[in-house]
């Protein structure tokens, strides 16, 4: 997704309001953007607090800054700068975190972002964009270029098998039909599940949805999704994020407020580091119960 992100921005780097800041990251990925943006590509050094405040200052001057780093370094280190300087002033700064969830794998817990959108969505005005598939990135960049509020873009790695076709970009999409439970996924983790889910017989195949823009608020959930939840009676939420502040919490609240809560809720989410051991993204997903086997188990 990082390359798709870079390619998308390159196309818009000539806009008069364009400016891109990186916290010294993007080697072997962002060079095309660096060439295209010229003096509007700024390596702000290893100083994320300053980078975010500088982005707020740039936005005050009428520019539309993007501030990029590895996900934990862009949302956690400068959290007060995001809160006070960007969100309190409702400035159009887009924070870009590469490697949401456990994407940085065996690099270790310092490089993971399993609580990023829960934390950020507690702030004023900010919206979160979590592409599920590679093709979502260009659509989101186009949206982000036009929006006027703080935003966080959580990048991962496209995991969708080429043979699975998905509808054109929308914040809520029904990816697979079926007569089983209703499954809602957030982020690229859903992509890797689609192949096996597609193979299930229609009677047990989950009505599979993906949501890419957060928060989920009452009144914004599409009627066909509500109908699927109502008809199936079993909602399964899959996300590479901790339970607290995650999609299941947001969605559960919204559904309960709407009087549309499901009879049964299953939540597959990041659970941290229970064994105290480290490994690949696949290893951490397995430890958290985020594999296809875990999904099939709750669908039984």
């Amino acid at each position, binding site marked *: 997704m990082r390359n798709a992100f870079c390619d998308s921005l390159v196309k818009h780097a000539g806009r008069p309001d364009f400016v891109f800041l990186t916290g010294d990251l993007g080697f072997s990925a962002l060079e095309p953007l660096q060439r295209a943006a010229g003096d509007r590509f700024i390596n702000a050094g290893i100083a994320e607090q300053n980078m975010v*405040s500088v982005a707020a200052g740039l936005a*005050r001057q009428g520019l539309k800054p993007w501030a990029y780093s590895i996900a934990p370094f862009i949302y956690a280190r400068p959290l007060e*700068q995001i809160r006070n300087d960007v969100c309190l002033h409702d400035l159009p700064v887009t924070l870009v975190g590469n490697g949401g969830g456990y994407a940085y794998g065996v690099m270790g817990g310092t490089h993971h972002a399993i609580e990023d959108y829960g934390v950020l969505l507690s702030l004023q005005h900010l919206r979160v964009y979590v592409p599920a598939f590679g093709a979502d990135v260009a659509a989101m960049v186009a949206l982000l270029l036009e929006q006027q509020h703080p935003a966080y873009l959580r990048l991962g790695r496209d995991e969708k098998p080429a043979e699975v076709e998905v509808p054109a970009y929308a914040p809520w999409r029904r990816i697979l039909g079926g007569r089983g439970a209703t499954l809602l996924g957030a982020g690229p983790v859903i992509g890797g599940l689609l192949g096996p889910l597609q193979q299930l017989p229609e009677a047990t195949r989950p009505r599979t949805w993906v949501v890419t823009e957060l928060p989920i608020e009452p009144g914004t959930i599409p009627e066909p999704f509500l109908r699927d939840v109502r008809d199936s009676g079993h909602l399964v939420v899959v996300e590479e994020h901790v339970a607290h502040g995650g999609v299941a919490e947001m969605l559960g609240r919204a559904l309960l407020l709407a009087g549309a809560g499901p009879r049964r809720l299953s939540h597959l989410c990041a659970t941290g580091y229970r064994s105290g051991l480290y490994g690949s993204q696949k290893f951490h997903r397995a430890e958290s119960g985020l594999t296809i086997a875990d999904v099939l188990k709750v669908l039984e």
Partner: protein
Amino acid sequence: MDAFEQLILKTKRRLLQMHFESGVGHIGGNLSCLDALMVLYHRVLTPADVFVLSKGHSAGSLYSVLWSQGRLSDDDLKQFHRDQTRLSGHPPPSGIREITFATGSLGHGLPLAAGVALGKQLKQEAGRVFCLTSDGEWQEGSNWEALIFAVHRRLESLVVMVDANGLQGFGTTREVASLHSLKEKFDAFGMPVEEVDGHDVGALERAWGSGARGPRAIIARTEKGRGVSFMRNKMEWHYLPMNEAQYRQAIAELEAVPGDPAP
């Protein structure tokens, strides 16, 4: 005493009146920087310039200075620190055109000012960017990040002044976490720096308004509680509100008599 110095005294009295009527402290640090803000707003700032108050706990001073220019009214100041006010205890994010950023958590103003200066540089816009920090807030790491950035990016429009009153929340800056020589540190970071008497109107005007290319720093040597004998260099006036007797005495000390030396 010239008319401008009389206006400064009048503004100091108005500041004290506002804090007294609202029962609000933070007076010491307001009095240490009021001279610098008066000079900046009345003698230096142009419409193309931007000012960021990093020491947000001196919001009272900023409000009073805006009052001295007729940009805030007596009615506005009466609402200071009350319910349904635009004038919160620290500068608000919106509602007052002249206030660029909500500040109050220290170590934010200089990075924000650097962003504004970078924006001016990229857009080739005119105007300077002024920032006032406290001295204690140079214990915040984000200021050093911003200093490296400002010097490295050659943010020519950026001018930062340090209100060096030597006192912070729970002691003197020297006792709490001494920075030793801040001037030497600016020098070492490649930031041109000068020291001025932060209560000398002429020196302040020369320092703020110098045409020298930025980024540059000014260390203004100031006194917390300047102008009020019982507040002068007393840490407790970082926090305390005045009782009526103290208010009366403070006002009396700040009554200007033409020809008298400043109290």
